[in-house]
């Protein structure tokens, strides 16, 4: 698993692929192969070999790039970019920038096509069927109790609901973490959606962290003991999690 995770970081973060000692890992795989009995072990070896082949491909690309005319030391370039001011940098850029020249023109044939189209186009009211008003014509009304029953408004304030969810999360996860689905799952789908909605705010407002396991495709919530302000100040990353009714039904079943 450690080798796979190393290969993953090389392929996704652009780390030097020669950080992975392919030969040594292959030797190790060959050495332990006769000892494996469980299919899971063979499967893990196969996955490792798959990732190693990607690393070898990256190594080939790396060598090709280093031998190309575009190769320069990336760290030297980064240092220079950090040291130069905006005006010097834009001055350098304009020396190697050759903007594309492009023109837009309406030709007579296109104008004729447009006129023909306009003349043939029936009026809007002829193309759109009339919508008959059904039911009450004016806006309806609902009491606060009805809205609460429908889940349109929460009991108490939003902050209170959020803090209540936070307390539940702390109780459930303790100092560790808990699976996102284990936390938000409730007896009804509507309640599950409500809890997922609040869980998203727990993360956004710094009450909890969201950890992902890309291999398993699993999400985990890790509660913080104190609300962290940095959660909104740092680089925000949106993580879409689908609260699918089918997933909820499968868990229920």
């Amino acid at each position, binding site marked *: 698993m450690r080798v796979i995770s190393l290969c993953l970081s090389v392929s996704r973060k652009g780390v030097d692929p020669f950080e992975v000692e392919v030969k040594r890992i292959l030797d190790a795989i060959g050495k332990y192969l006769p000892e494996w009995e469980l299919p899971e072990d063979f499967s893990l070896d196969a996955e490792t070999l798959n990732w190693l082949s990607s690393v070898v491909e990256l190594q080939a690309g*790396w060598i090709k790039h280093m031998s*190309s005319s575009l190769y320069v030391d990336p760290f030297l370039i980064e240092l220079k970019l950090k040291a130069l001011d905006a005006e010097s940098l834009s001055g350098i850029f304009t020396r190697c920038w050759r903007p594309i020249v492009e023109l837009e023109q309406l030709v007579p044939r296109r104008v004729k096509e447009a006129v023909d189209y306009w003349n043939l186009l029936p009026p809007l009211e002829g193309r759109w069927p009339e919508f008959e008003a059904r039911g009450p014509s004016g806006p309806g009304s609902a009491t606060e109790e009805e809205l609460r029953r429908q889940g349109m408004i929460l009991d108490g304030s939003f902050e209170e609901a959020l803090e209540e969810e936070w307390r539940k999360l702390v109780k459930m996860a303790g100092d560790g973490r808990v699976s996102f689905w284990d936390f938000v799952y409730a007896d009804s789908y509507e309640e599950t959606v409500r809890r997922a909605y609040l869980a998203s705010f727990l993360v956004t407002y710094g009450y909890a962290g969201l950890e992902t396991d890309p291999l398993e495709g699993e999400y985990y919530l890790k509660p913080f003991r104190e609300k962290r302000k940095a959660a909104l100040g740092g680089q925000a990353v949106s993580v879409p999690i689908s609260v699918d009714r089918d997933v909820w039904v499968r868990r229920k079943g």
Partner: protein
Amino acid sequence: MSEKSGAYAGKVKRAVQMLLFQRHRRPGVKGWELKRSLGRDFMKVVDLLNTRLDDLGLRVSVVYEGREPGGRPSEEELERAVFYVVLRGASSVESLSGWRVDEVAGLAAAVAFIASRQGKAARRDVEGLLRVKFPGWRVDLALDRFVRRGYLDEGEGGMLYVGWRGRAEIDQKMLLDLLLGEALK
């Protein structure tokens, strides 16, 4: 005017119309489109057009697919390449209509950073570099704008690449050489 040179003059006119007037969503014409319209010797027409454009400070730029410029391209590479008309010489800072100087600097930094890393870099790394000089909100907006205009391309896993317009308009080797020259001063 001989019949042959007259035919070429007609082809040059057709080529300039194809190259200058936007025909698709993106500017530029594929090599195979030029070949279909101008014939097998379309590169001769492009060369002739280049001599005419020279007087106007313009030239035809050829961007090959997955290949560095230079050397003799094969016929297949020429057909897959995209042809644009670009400024021949360096543009001036005054000509940056619609661009703020710091935006141009941001674009230069992003392209140079990506080009020095085998043509791809994680968006968060590029953001990290730009945040050294610019506020975070402006970095996000600028990167989105570069992607929208085709200077950068955003792929899976949050990786940034030099986009189609970046490859057509920016001499990446010259940019790196100039920066390196500055670095060695």
